């Protein structure tokens, strides 16, 4: 069982209740359970988290950097898509 045979997993940690899981890094493990246990030891030893997600890296599909232009640039000059033109009533407070 060589290290090179162990698949790579992406690890997501929720740091506190109510917050989102955030990508923290990746690690090697033979299966999902080991990935979660390894993540516990590698990424939560300094009280970083209360919940762990592990996703095998091969299941993460990414956008193509070569297409970054047509993908993301069109959004740059469309400020009206930001909901900044509304007056928020005082009572709502910080949104």
């Amino acid at each position, binding site marked *: 069982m060589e290290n090179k045979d162990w698949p790579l997993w992406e690890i997501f940690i929720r740091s506190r209740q109510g917050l989102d899981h955030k990508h923290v890094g990746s690690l090697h493990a033979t299966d999902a359970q080991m990935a979660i246990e390894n993540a516990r030891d*590698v990424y939560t030893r300094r009280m970083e988290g209360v919940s762990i997600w592990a996703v095998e890296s091969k299941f993460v599909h990414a956008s193509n950097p070569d297409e970054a232009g047509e993908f993301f640039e069109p959004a740059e000059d469309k400020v009206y898509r930001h909901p900044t033109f509304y007056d928020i009533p005082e009572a709502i407070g910080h949104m």
Partner: protein
Amino acid sequence: MTNIAIHTDTQTALCNYVLQLADTNLILGQRICEWCGHGPVLEQDIALSNIGLDLLGQTRSLYQYAAELQGAGKTEDDLAFLRNERQFKNLLLAEQPNGDFGYTIVRQFLYESFQQLLLNELKKSSNKQLAAIAEKSLIETNYHYKWSAEWVIRLGDGTEESKSRIQKSINEIWTYSGEMFIPSAEEQLLAKLGMIPDVSTLENAWMQKVKSVFEEATLTMPEAMYMQRGGKTGVHTEHLGYILAEMQYLQRQYPGQTW
């Protein structure tokens, strides 16, 4: 007068018992930390060190309590670094060298499965300090148990090679497992007072626990065999001297040296 004598006896027994718990954790923790930088994969290297340091943390609470019971102005460091081989009361199991990863796993599994049973009883102790230390340690121990049991199953129910190697480790180390259930004089006295559980009564539950994990791992329980003993009374295998020499060198050479 009699009352004071009994009290002193209990106090001494309690102190020796706490040292016994502390020494086992210290030596095993030191052993596991020897894996640092040598783990089979980075993730397990970190897992091993985490467990080693958990044990060291538990050791500190115990030594601090033992020093308090002794009342001789000693510190936790004195107890760890300035006692000799014959004064250490750790289980023989704890001092056995790491061997391969499978051997380390089996050693840990046999110990943590016992420790889980023991701490579950100790947390109900009439002695508040012991109960508090047990309760805090148990959370860590539960994880150590889970981690080591997982690996016993993975290696046992793994490849032909991993299975034959871990089975060999089990057969080799088994002779050091019985000592956990043979009470020392201190343990007998304190159990009689209801302060700690009678360790011999934990053996059946332990055996069942180990057996069910071995079954899942498709491993074979060793036949009943002669059980090595002596650790609790300071009679050790040849391995303890070396580990103490390495651990204590600095304090012996430069007394009182601090970080």
